[in-house]
């Protein structure tokens, strides 16, 4: 059985605010040394799938840098392996140009499906954090002689409005599909991952579904009515890092003594291009409670309940609490970072306070940023002594001149 995995990695990830200002959500750093797409890519190779296409559109440069020829996943192969599929121009009317959704993305790349001579296409999302062996799902698909199999997991009723909800018969065949319903009796949610018979995929997207733009919202509901569509129930940890709070919770979840998502699993290694950095150096006054540290980090101050990325420097007398600090960020003496997400190469000046005061929801994104998390964009330079409130957004590459002298109040966006 020949399977092609297509990973949708073109998402703009609007819920991640400045973290996706210059990268797709699939390329957002996660758990210190990883990026979101590492989980899906590693699932593929750990499931024995070595024919993988990554579909990009939004700001793909950091994803290209990350994946390159696919070495860390052993996907630098002469047969199959990894390829990055970018939007392209075409004279054909039914393809080419910018993609408006996942159906578009797959349709524009059906040539790859045809030429890879695969029997089945596994469509995956690049922004999900989970460990899953896809082989049992493929086997389920084969045994049910399904046209399409949807990865599904149970969710509590209050979350049903975020998902496509599925109703199945006892055999697992989907009888009803509701897209993000406010009320429903269904408890099974679509994970947004699908096994398609390759021929069925081509028939739908070039035939009745040629005007579909979104797989979940348009193609799948149509298919439920006209094709044999089954739900494969996944049991295990799964999260979609679509929002800042989901992203934050998923990172913090790694800090538990026995985390729901175990990264130290020798039989299911999450592969990533490890940077060539020395081990973590902890100084004489370092405090290191309940945290993760990546190679190249140097900790001389206090770190509590935080995820510290590669090459981060926390100076003596600095304090980092309940935060996510990405690669090569520097936190100077006396600075305090509390409940914040600092993107790569941020500089926090001496004595600066990031995340302080009352929990006032962010003025520009009140629904996304209201739990007290302050987000600082890549390469922002926070001047010495600056005071920055909670739920604040600092744009990438902000310079000290951008900061008001009396500080950035809670809920502001810079």
């Amino acid at each position, binding site marked *: 059985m020949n399977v092609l995995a297509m990973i949708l990695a073109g998402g703009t990830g609007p819920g991640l605010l400045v973290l996706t200002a210059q990268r797709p959500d699939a390329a957002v750093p996660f758990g210190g040394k990883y990026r979101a797409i590492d989980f899906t890519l590693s699932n593929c190779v750990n499931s024995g799938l070595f024919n993988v296409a990554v579909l990009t559109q939004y700001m793909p440069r950091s994803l290209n840098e990350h994946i390159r020829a696919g070495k860390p996943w052993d996907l630098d192969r002469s047969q199959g392996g990894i390829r990055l599929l970018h939007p392209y121009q075409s004279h054909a009317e039914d393809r080419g140009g910018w993609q408006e959704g996942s159906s578009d993305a797959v349709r524009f790349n059906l040539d790859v499906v045809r030429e890879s001579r695969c029997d089945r296409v596994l469509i995956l999302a690049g922004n999900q954090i989970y460990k899953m062996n896809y082989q049992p799902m493929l086997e389920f698909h084969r045994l049910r002689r399904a046209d399409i199999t949807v990865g599904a997991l149970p969710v509590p009723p209050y979350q049903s409005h975020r998902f496509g909800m599925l109703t199945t018969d006892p055999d697992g065949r989907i009888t009803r599909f509701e897209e993000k319903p406010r009320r429903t009796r269904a408890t099974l949610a679509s994970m947004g991952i699908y096994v398609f018979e390759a021929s069925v995929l081509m028939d739908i997207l070039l035939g009745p579904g040629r005007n579909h733009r979104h797989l979940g919202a348009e193609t799948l509901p149509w298919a439920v009515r006209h094709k044999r569509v089954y739900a494969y129930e996944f049991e295990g940890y799964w999260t979609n890092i679509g929002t800042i709070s989901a992203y934050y919770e998923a990172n913090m979840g790694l800090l538990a003594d026995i985390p729901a998502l175990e*990264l130290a699993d020798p039989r299911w290694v999450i592969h990533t291009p*490890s940077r*060539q950095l020395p081990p973590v150096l902890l100084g004489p006054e370092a405090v290191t409670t*309940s*945290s993760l540290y990546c190679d190249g980090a140097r900790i001389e101050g206090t770190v509590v309940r935080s995820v*510290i990325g590669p090459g981060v420097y926390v100076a003596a007398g600095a304090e980092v609490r309940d935060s996510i600090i990405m690669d090569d960020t520097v936190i100077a003496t006396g600075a305090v970072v509390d409940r914040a997400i600092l993107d790569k190469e941020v500089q926090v000046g001496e004595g600066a306070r990031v995340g302080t005061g009352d929990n006032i929801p962010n003025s520009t994104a009140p629904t996304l940023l209201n739990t007290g998390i302050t987000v600082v964009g890549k390469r922002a330079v926070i001047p010495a002594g600056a005071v920055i409130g909670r739920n604040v957004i600092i744009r990438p590459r902000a310079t000290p001149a951008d900061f008001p002298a009396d500080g950035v109040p809670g809920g502001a966006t810079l």
Partner: protein
Amino acid sequence: MRVVAMIMAGGEGSRLTVLSEQRAKPSVPFAGKYRIIDFTLSNCVNSRIYDVAILTQYRPHSLNEHIGIGRPWDLDRMTGGVRLLQPYQARGSQGWYRGTADAVYQNIDYLLNRDADLVLILSGDHIYKMDYRPMIAYHEEKGADLTVAVMNVPLEETDRFGIMTVNKAGRVLEFYEKPKTRDKGTLASMGIYVFNVPKLIERLTEFHQKEPNLDFGKHVIPAMIHEDKVYAYPFEGYWVDVGTVDAYWRTSLELCDPNSPLNLWDPHWVIRTLSQERPPVKCSAQGKVVRALVSNGCTIHGYVEHSVLSPGVYVSPGAIVRDAVIMNDTWIGPGAIVDKAVVDKQVLIGAGVHLGWGDDWRPNAERPDWLDTGITVVGKGAHIAPNLRIGRNVLIYPDVDEDVFSVPDGLIPSGATVTPQAVLFPPATPAVVAASPTPATTVSTSPAVEGVSGFAQEVSS
């Protein structure tokens, strides 16, 4: 000008005791995630030398695993790249390498095939960062046949090195291999040579007829000084031979100092290694780590101070690790104490074990010359039974099982040796009670040196 590098990596490093029992010295882990040879290999590629041969002989398996096809060093190339050169049989000729120069002599074909003009002979045993390009430029500028990298060493250590005297132009006048007297100066050979390939081939072929155990330090260099143009290239910088357990331990723990003389963070001189795919270091709520170098994949529930931890070390709740070097995937049980020790890979230290116990600093009875500074050494894969007290200068062999440790009072006294069969107790003499030797806080400027490769001693011993 085509330059190839040949790295001598056959050394046994016998004074590293059990650390080099199952691997060649260049393959001994160092600074957490590295192996000793990574420094020389990284120097090569950072100096833009992409044609590298590694000559192996003693226990090469771990080195072969580590080097693979040379990916971490970008040496997996179509042209050039890394080659492992093992001893081989040929019609009517010998097999083993019988000296450093003999090893090169047996691989002259490699030099000819590579069409090399210059060959850089290196040792895989040393920890240092060096750009070889200025040395090669110096060699060409002087029109030399052979250039030897030299550095000044303390006068009292000159008997461990090849010592040379030079004239103002840098030309070597005399060479004394490990001189007994102190009047020869302090300019020591680092075992790093640049040869003109035709001259090297000519000389090796000539010398080999008289001396089959051909060695660069003992035979080739002294003989060439009088007939050929031999120059000394002065090197200033950090350079250490971690030839003994004490030097190894001391040099490792120096890296816990944020101002350590060996800067591993330099983005312009990255030390590359085969990084294991491990998650970040995890320090739990009760875990605490100070003054330490800790690699990816470690889990810390206990207390770690002034120690170097390789990937995957697990420190259980209540355990204390102090002044220790702990290698990959070693498990330290609940409440165990490890004090002043070097613990190899995949060791299990049972709950409540106190490794490095007491104030008796008597040297190891079996090998007093190797273990006399209070460091207890545990070999790869040893399993230490729970609740034992183990003294200082104890040597525990690889793969020792729990049952061997059934001893009276659960005490392995200082100076004992634990083999897979039995515990060898030291003779019953009074304890040597002394203050603990000072921990490594200063730069080790007195590296112990053990020849350049160890090929020769292989045969003599």
